[in-house]
């Protein structure tokens, strides 16, 4: 039933530089956070997994769940991919003349194609996506009238409106204030633990306190996967401290949950 994404020996070359070296991983239902320092190749990996970035070597397969055939993400028609996987861009390069509702409705193109006429179910999906991201109250405002954080929530709603089971989100917490960061973490938990239709969420995150609440952490550095496991795994925590060059401390609180702090006092 659960969607799974499988990457096998993925290599990506941008210009003359190898950005990803033989990355292999599997993503299943649940919330996975992808972390690593700047330039580690996180966004490129996400684009490669979404089928948006051509590979120098390797393959990416997506199994949408049930008895479906796995799809090779780089050989499947975009229309077919769009029904099972949604991708959120890192920085919204949105021109911003559409209203919030019109923008979220674009997510339904993944289901309807360019010519399909929206029916009640489509409107419901759009309403639900806006409700989940708390953007419903200003659904008729234009994107360029919104703050960065508000816009980010609208773009997230656009992704949710596709109703794809696999969500790849590039820094969804950018521009969000603390309450909405917390709300977003809760939303991911809710989406991935929904019994009727569990989603798989893979999100690139810079906010380590949020990333440490994910079910699983992928640590990427210099284009290779350094660690993969639950945030409580000491090996994962050690890798995290290492790739951030000792700029962070990770400690466990009374419940055994990891907490992260910037090592500002260390000389």
């Amino acid at each position, binding site marked *: 039933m659960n969607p799974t994404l499988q990457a096998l020996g993925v290599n990506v070359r941008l210009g003359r530089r190898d950005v990803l070296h033989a990355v292999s991983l599997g993503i299943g239902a649940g919330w996975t956070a992808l972390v690593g320092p700047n330039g580690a190749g996180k966004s490129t990996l996400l684009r490669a997994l979404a089928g948006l970035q051509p590979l120098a070597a390797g393959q990416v397969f997506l199994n949408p769940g049930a008895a479906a055939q796995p799809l090779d993400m780089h050989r499947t028609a975009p229309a077919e991919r*769009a029904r099972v996987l949604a991708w959120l861009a890192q920085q919204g390069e949105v021109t911003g003349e559409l209203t919030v509702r019109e923008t979220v409705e*674009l997510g339904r193109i993944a289901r309807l194609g360019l*010519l399909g006429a929206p029916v009640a179910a489509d409107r419901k999906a759009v309403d639900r996506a806006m409700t989940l991201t708390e953007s419903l109250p200003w659904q008729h405002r234009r994107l360029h009238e919104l703050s960065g954080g508000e816009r980010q929530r609208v773009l997230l709603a*656009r992704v949710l409106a596709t109703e794809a089971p696999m969500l790849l989100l590039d820094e969804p917490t950018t521009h969000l204030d603390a309450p909405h960061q917390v709300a977003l973490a809760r939303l991911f938990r809710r989406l991935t633990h929904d019994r009727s239709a569990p989603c798989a969420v893979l999100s690139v995150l810079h906010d380590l306190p949020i990333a440490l609440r994910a079910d699983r952490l992928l640590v990427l550095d210099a284009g290779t996967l350094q660690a993969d496991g639950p945030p409580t795994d000491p090996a994962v925590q050690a890798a995290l401290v290492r790739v951030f060059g000792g700029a962070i401390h990770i400690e466990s609180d009374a419940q055994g949950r990891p907490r992260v702090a910037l090592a500002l006092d260390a000389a």
Partner: protein
Amino acid sequence: MSTSFVATNRPGFDASATADATARRRLAAWIALAIVVGLACGLATGSTGFAPRDFWADLNGNDAALLLGQIRAPRTLGAALVGALLGLSGAVAQGVFRNPLADPYLLGSAAGAGLGVVLVLAAAALGGATVSPATAAWIERVGLVSAAFVGALAGVSLTLTLASGAVHTLRLLLAGVVIGVLLGAVSDLITVVSPDALRGKQAFMLGSTSFLGWDALALMLAGLTLLVVLAQRHARALDALTLGEDSATSLGLNLGKVRLALVLMLSLGTALAVSQAGLVAFVGLVAPHLVRRRAPGTHAWLLVASAGMGAAILLWADVISRALIAPEELPVGVVTAVLGGSYLVWLLKQRTSA
């Protein structure tokens, strides 16, 4: 997404939705009015300038069929159709390049059409010595339209070939610039060899509605209808492109194909307009701007409204070009350039003072 979410699904926020719809309806009404009044003024503008009083006399005069039926009506309606084609092409261009400064002439169609015209003029001047003057005149008349049309499409085809398709926007724009410069250089070279072609080329570059006849109108109307239908079918793709190219792809669009289809549409619209009326400046750039400023919306609205706005602008520009220094005429392209340029200057002032 917060736990404290309460149902805010109350109808209070519908005010801005209806405000948007009202703005669009109002603009549509204004455009329709401008077109109707523009058509009436166009029919009432003759060699004595804008003369509504003489219109009744013209209508009952002996030459009514010739004057109104064969000269004023086709050129007035033609101006509207050319404007609509340019407005639509401009809206498609700005959508597909995600740039409010994109213009329908961007991809080499202007330079291609110019070269086609120069080639025919030079050939006619050259052949004028050997064939009868009547034949040469016929070649010039019929040949110019087809040459401009073929030239415009050839220019875009060269651009698409150089950019190896429409997959990369930047490459496409660069190729358009390169082809524009190259074809322009070839036409300049030909006008040096055959100076007679220069005059004709200049008239073409400035744009004119004076050669429009009923057959040209039928052709443009058919083209416009086809393009509006095709563009409407791609309106949601243009909406999706506002999210960025990768996001549009992730929504299931085959961007290479969609963009190619849109580029072909805007090229066909531009080629039709240019071949019948020459290079009318600024309408394709300004019409979508005016629509977006007054009543923004999705492309399903934007495309049609831009076509209407283009028609209204060129109708009025045509009336002005005929009335201002009657019985002489200004080239309509000069009028649109002045009007469009002034509008952009005004827009810049607004932006900087705001």
